[in-house]
């Protein structure tokens, strides 16, 4: 991995016969600016949140030590438990909805025909909109009284999508899919184009059908992309906030109050900073755990093997 960089100091040493200075090549100090930024903007707040999760603070008065009080209270709180369940449901469902669609779209668009390029542009449009704009637009479109159901006389669409507790979360998951499928399709499209044509040619000679091509060549070759895309999707769905905040703000009732929203509402509406910090820490730990687990299970150390075999 670090071959090109690692080679240079050796070359330098040859030229300058072991002198220090620029010729000595990169040292650990080159990473210092990035490390300082990371430390200041990522590690310090993270430690702050961790410390705050053991404190009582309403944002106004003095901080006071809470011990494990915040942790037992938040984990025993029905609202937070509900939020954890919702977040899990959403993580799983978002993966289940988005992965097959992105995969099929990406592979389809990896083809060379001209019309696919036009379609690809259309498919990628949602990538360009901010979550807030998407949220406001969908809220207006789905409005049962003034939305598209009335505008176009489509009565079957005249349902209270965002106001009905059992419809709100599925509706939001569909909108999230609309937002993020283009990005993941792009990943799959790129990866599918990397698959050497010679493999397909060999399969064609052996008389493989298109479906067989997909299942026996494309899918295995995309294994690493699937893992990358899934990691992004799953860790991403732990942080979905803006779209849900704009569309339902956690409502109706608690129907869409996922963990990040629960954290915001606890911290900045109920002014329970300690409790909000507990949720923050939970999110960080779960996110890291899932990312690590996906990497571990998928054998990331053997990442390059497929491609090298192909070449």
């Amino acid at each position: 991995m670090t071959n090109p960089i690692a080679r240079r100091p050796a070359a330098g040493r040859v030229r300058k016969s072991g002198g220090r200075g620029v010729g000595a090549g990169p040292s650990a100090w080159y990473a210092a600016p990035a490390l300082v930024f990371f430390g200041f903007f990522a590690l310090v707040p993270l430690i702050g949140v961790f410390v705050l999760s053991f404190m009582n603070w309403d944002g106004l008065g003095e901080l006071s030590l809470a011990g494990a009080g915040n942790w037992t209270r938040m984990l025993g709180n029905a609202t937070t438990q509900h939020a954890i369940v919702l977040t899990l449901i959403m993580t799983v469902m978002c993966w289940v909805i988005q992965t097959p669609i992105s995969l099929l779209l990406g592979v389809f668009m990896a083809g060379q025909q001209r019309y696919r390029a036009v379609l690809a542009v259309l498919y990628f449009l949602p990538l360009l909109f901010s979550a807030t704009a998407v949220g406001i637009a969908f809220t207006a479109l789905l409005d049962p009284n003034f939305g598209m159901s009335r505008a176009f006389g489509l009565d079957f669409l005249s349902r209270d999508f965002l106001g009905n507790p059992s419809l709100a979360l599925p509706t939001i998951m569909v909108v999230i899919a609309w937002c993020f499928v283009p990005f993941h399709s792009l990943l799959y499209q790129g990866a599918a184009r990397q698959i050497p044509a010679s493999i397909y040619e060999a399969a064609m000679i052996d008389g493989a059908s298109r479906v067989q091509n997909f299942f026996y060549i494309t899918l295995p070759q995309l294994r690493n992309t699937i893992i990358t895309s899934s990691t992004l999707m799953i860790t991403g769905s732990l942080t979905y906030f803006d779209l849900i905040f704009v569309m339902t703000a956690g409502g109706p009732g608690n129907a869409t109050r996922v963990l990040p929203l629960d954290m915001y509402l606890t911290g900045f509406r109920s002014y329970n900073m300690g409790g909000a910090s507990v949720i923050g820490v939970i999110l960080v730990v779960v996110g890291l755990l899932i990312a690590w687990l996906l990497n571990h299970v998928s054998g990331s150390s053997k990442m390059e093997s497929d491609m090298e075999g192909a070449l």
Partner: protein
Amino acid sequence: MYQLKISRRRMTTGMLAAGAASLLAACGNRPGGASSAGGGATAWVLTGGPEQTFRDSFERWNTAYSERQIATEWFANDAYKEKIRTAVGAGNAPTLLYNWAGGTLADYVANEQVIDLTESTVTAQERIVPSLLDPGKIDGKVYALPNNNAQPVMLYYSKPAFEAIGAQPPTTWDELMRLVPEFTAAGYIPFAEAGSSQWPYLMWIEYLTDRIGGPEPFAKIVAGEPDAWSDPAITGALEKIQELVRAGGFGDSYGSVDADSGADIALIHTGKAAMILQGSWVYANFLTDAPDFMSAGNLGYMDFPSVAGGTGDLTNIVGNPANYWSISASGSQEVQQIAIDYLNEELYNEDYIEALVAGGTIPAALDADAAIAASEHAEYLAYGYDMVKNAGSFTQSWDQALSSAAAQELLTNLSQIFLLQIDPEQFVTNMNATL
């Protein structure tokens, strides 16, 4: 017309002066920090609503007292709410602290972040409707004074909708319930309700509790008495709400109607709904959103109906009494005195009241009859003004009166009541846990 021109010119020069003053004040502030002596008084004010009243008032003060300027900064509602608490917590609060009284004010007082105004602002207090002073009092001492319009909640209705079914506006709860199937049969949503915004749900429980048991049950809750939510008036109100929901009183899509975008009042002026329970500010919204509907005189308004067997006085009202000024404790004595003198001199003086009435809002002042009578919307303003002045009690919106944490819990549980996800017993249990 002539008067208007003058005031506009005065406004422009005043705004320039105020702008220059705030620049100067800001420069002067830097080296010594916000709370240093001689830094000048500051005020953070909200845009929208009666903004012009505030602008005119600070302009008058700054023109009259060049040595004792008040520098203003302007914020949008949501941005302000999140900024002010941080600023107060960090000891960087402006001298004049715009707030909603109630639970947050109690927090400020408990942390000694605002000063006692009981003695120093008697002159200003004498000009204010007494019931509107109450939310600004903590333990009998005045910590905040109303600074704009009174905002009682009323029952608004569409006159054409009532003509269509040949009915009269309801004066009792039973009449109201009888109207529900009639409106539904005629294709109307009986009540427009902005469930997506959650806070409009509060108006129902506030009025029903008051009509059934008067203001005392909620006063006990604010006082934090154990099991105060178990009061039969609360349970009765919750049961009535669920009866109305089951009868189809809000139609079947109230959960996604949003008040901030005016979708609830749009249901009224587009002829889809018959009635709406909302704060007095929606009158101004109707004027801008549906000028034709308003000029045809189609909007009716009335008090909340009585409930059979209820003990609450029919003149009792709920809503937002007003917004409030407090004075930050972090400034110097000198700066605090400027703010106190400003309140005594400017608050609800003649010009102040005139500006509020001109904006179509109900002034929180004792002596506003003449200004209201001269207004374009005299009939409505006089109705609201009398309602406020003659009110047996004025219960502050529950979410403002309670602590932030309890208010959030209330909004969530109440929306679950409206969505029929929980029953009144569960609501009472959940809310008692916040006391």
